[in-house]
């Protein structure tokens, strides 16, 4: 199939950037979206045009590196799928495809479709952990944890930190990401000890980074490749209230 791509090109952080039009010729429906871009890039390189820069790594939907806004939807039209797992069979011959980087004040563009997501890192540095040193941990089975609780923690922990929640949120809010981390620990007994401190620190850092506020659109959940549930945002709010009021 043949496609027309409209791709955001921006030389570096200080460049203004603009959309450019490219043709993608002879695309196989078996290709992944990123393989389609590989083919376009090979073609551009041979023509002496600088290839399109985009983040990617594992290409099996788990590292969270790939991050494209495709036709206005984070990670493209397939629900529960990262860009690298999106295949061209979901597009038709002659389609026009808009490809843009994540857009948020807290995620400045580095080049073309690559953005700087270090804000997420700093939120984690602020408190996304349980404070224990290596060695000296008690036997793993010394602390039984109800399966239901452990499963809930796992549901939250499945987050891959790609930033699609921020990219898709009309407010560029990072609440789904932060809540996934906060509640993974809050739902486990070993994480309860620091729960109050953790939620306050992580939320404070989130606010400092310049993300927007959550106004319950739930767009984040709809595009999340790991389908993280917005119930975790609710739980985080509760954790936050408990922490601030000392009722936790």
């Amino acid at each position: 199939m043949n496609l027309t791509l409209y791709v955001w090109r921006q030389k570096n952080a200080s460049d203004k950037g603009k959309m450019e039009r490219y043709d993608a010729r002879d695309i196989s429906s078996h290709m992944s979206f990123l393989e389609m871009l590989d083919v376009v890039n090979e073609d551009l390189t041979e023509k002496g045009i600088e290839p399109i820069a985009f983040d990617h790594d594992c290409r099996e939907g788990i590292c969270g590196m790939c991050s494209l806004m495709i036709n206005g939807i984070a990670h493209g039209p397939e629900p529960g799928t990262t860009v690298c797992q999106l295949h061209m069979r979901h597009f038709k011959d002659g389609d026009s495809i808009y490809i843009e980087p994540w857009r948020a004040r807290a995620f400045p563009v580095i080049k073309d479709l690559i953005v700087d997501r270090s804000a997420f890192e700093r939120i984690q540095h602020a408190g996304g952990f349980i404070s224990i040193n290596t060695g000296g941990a008690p036997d793993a089975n010394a602390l039984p944890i109800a399966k239901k609780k452990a499963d809930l923690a796992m549901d939250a922990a499945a987050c891959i930190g790609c930033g699609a929640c921020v990219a898709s949120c009309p407010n560029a809010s990072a609440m789904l990401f932060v809540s996934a981390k906060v509640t993974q620990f809050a739902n486990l007994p070993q994480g309860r000890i620091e729960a109050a401190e953790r939620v306050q620190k992580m939320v404070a850092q989130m606010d400092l980074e310049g993300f927007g506020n959550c106004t319950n659109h739930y767009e984040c959940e709809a595009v999340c490749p790991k389908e993280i549930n917005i119930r975790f945002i609710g739980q985080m709010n509760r954790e936050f209230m408990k922490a601030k009021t000392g009722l936790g």
Partner: protein
Amino acid sequence: MTLDAKIPSGPLAEKWEKHKFEMKLVNPANKRKYSIIVVGSGLAGGSAAASLAELGYNVMCFCYQDSPRRAHSIAAQGGINASKNYQNDGDSTYRLFYDTIKGGDFRSREANVYRLAEVSANIIDQCVAQGVPFAREYGGLLDNRSFGGAQVSRTFYARGQTGQQLLLGAYSALCRQIGKGQVKMFNRAEMLDLVVVDGRTCGIVVRDMINGKVSSYAADAVVLATGGYSNVFYLSTMAKGCNVTAAYRAYKKGALFANPCYTQIHPTCIPVSGDYQSKLTLMSESLRNDGRIWVPKSADDKRAPGDIPEGDRDYYLERKYPSFGNLAPRDISSRSAKEACDEGRGVGETGLGVYLDFADAIGRLGENVIRERYGNLFHMYEKITGENPYKAPMRIYPALHYTMGGLWVDYNLESNLPGLFVLGEANFSDHGANRLGASALMQGLADGYFVAPYTMGNWLARAGVSEVKADHAEFKKAETDVTGRTKKLLAINGKRTVDSFHRELGLIMWENCGMARNEAGLKKALEQIPKLREEFWQNVLVPGENEELNQSLERAGRVADYLEFGEVVCQDALTRTESCGGHFREESQTKEGEAMRDDKHFTHVSAWEFKGVGKAPELHKEQLKFENVELATRSYK
């Protein structure tokens, strides 16, 4: 050069305890005087960086991704082994040790493997304390499963995302230390050279991948935890960015590269669909518990799988290995698939695939049971191929998956270059010629949490604070070399893209040094690779500039290293004329076509020393001594 593995004396089970006591310690007040560089932030690197920082050392950690959490350890699905014996099914440190030695086809060090088994239980404790949400039973205790044909249930898991969860655990420990300022984290930073002054490893040279700036970092010790080199085959299950560059630059600076020919091929991957294929996707081996593998009996049979009657199908694994059938080990299963395809009986558009059929299992157990067991894998398969595996059989093909070879290290995980430590997949130490399922995660974390923090102290206490700073002439020289090389790559301005070279190299490697190897093929590869390398340096087209984020340039540097490293792999495969583990030499097989080890001549580690580009590396041997286990032959008939 004599290779001293520095294995402590004494009975196997007491070596590590004894060694821990004998090692020198760094006074707590003095730890802050030492700085350590950790390259790589996966399970091994992340856990090492965090643990060393917890001890009080100043750590600098580097990764090429935009976050340490994205290291490819994240993609491991199945689980992590530990000899906890929670299931009361007879597991023990010794059994895990024995299984690992045997699985590695008796090509690993007893002492290292025993220590690995010994600390495996601590890993689970550590991870649970960090908040890793392992699967649990209704009673609240940890769940286990049997994995990769093991006779005991010792595998801990977190859904199909165990690697992710363990990595996030290590990353959370790392975050804590970054937050405290004890670890300085460098993301989007690629190590491009190692600096050695007067025989001591002093630091690294790094390119900032955002602005191209090349800088030097000096430290009292350097830890490489940079993963494996499967991407020398271009197509593999590794992440696109995984590379051998850091390890290879260390090799060029004198570190020995051990057993590079030991590569593991995983039998259940989704087949290649076309030339554009950029990587391969693994599906858990557990699929073989219920799926039956077959190809048409006749090469001319081009009917749809559903139209081929039972009588015209060849369930070749069940036929050749009646007792193990579809559960035959990874290497056997992979090789048999290749044989079937070589005979022209492969299926799918490319003819490079075999069927993995669930029709019988669905008939026997019902679709719901199969959905419960493999739902996520079936879903993944359908997402990638667009075919419904409940209706038509899956197509699978083997793919490069893991590399057991790596930089040579002694018992302390220190390479032959003093002050250079190598952890995880990047070293060669624990898996011998073949790795068991669910052992990669175990090794990475064992090295990072429980081995390196001890042995590092011993080294620092003995070596003292390094006098060499980042403005030393050797650093300047290395920076000049790195910059010169980058300039050279950009200046060639040829006709072929970097990827086209990488694909061609991959094909040479896969054809001649893949699942089955022979002398003629390896010699052919050793002729082709230098030619390709020569063409690369004359005709590669690397667009853009150095002073910007330039993904073509990053790849070009890595491929340039692969074009040299591929030769080392082939050289090692050529020299090892026996078959063992993941290395199958066609000349060394039984009448039935089974791998035949040659314990008389090859019970050693082959460690290669760099002698110059295009020159044959020099072989050093470390004899493996088996004092506790008896060398046995595998049989899966």
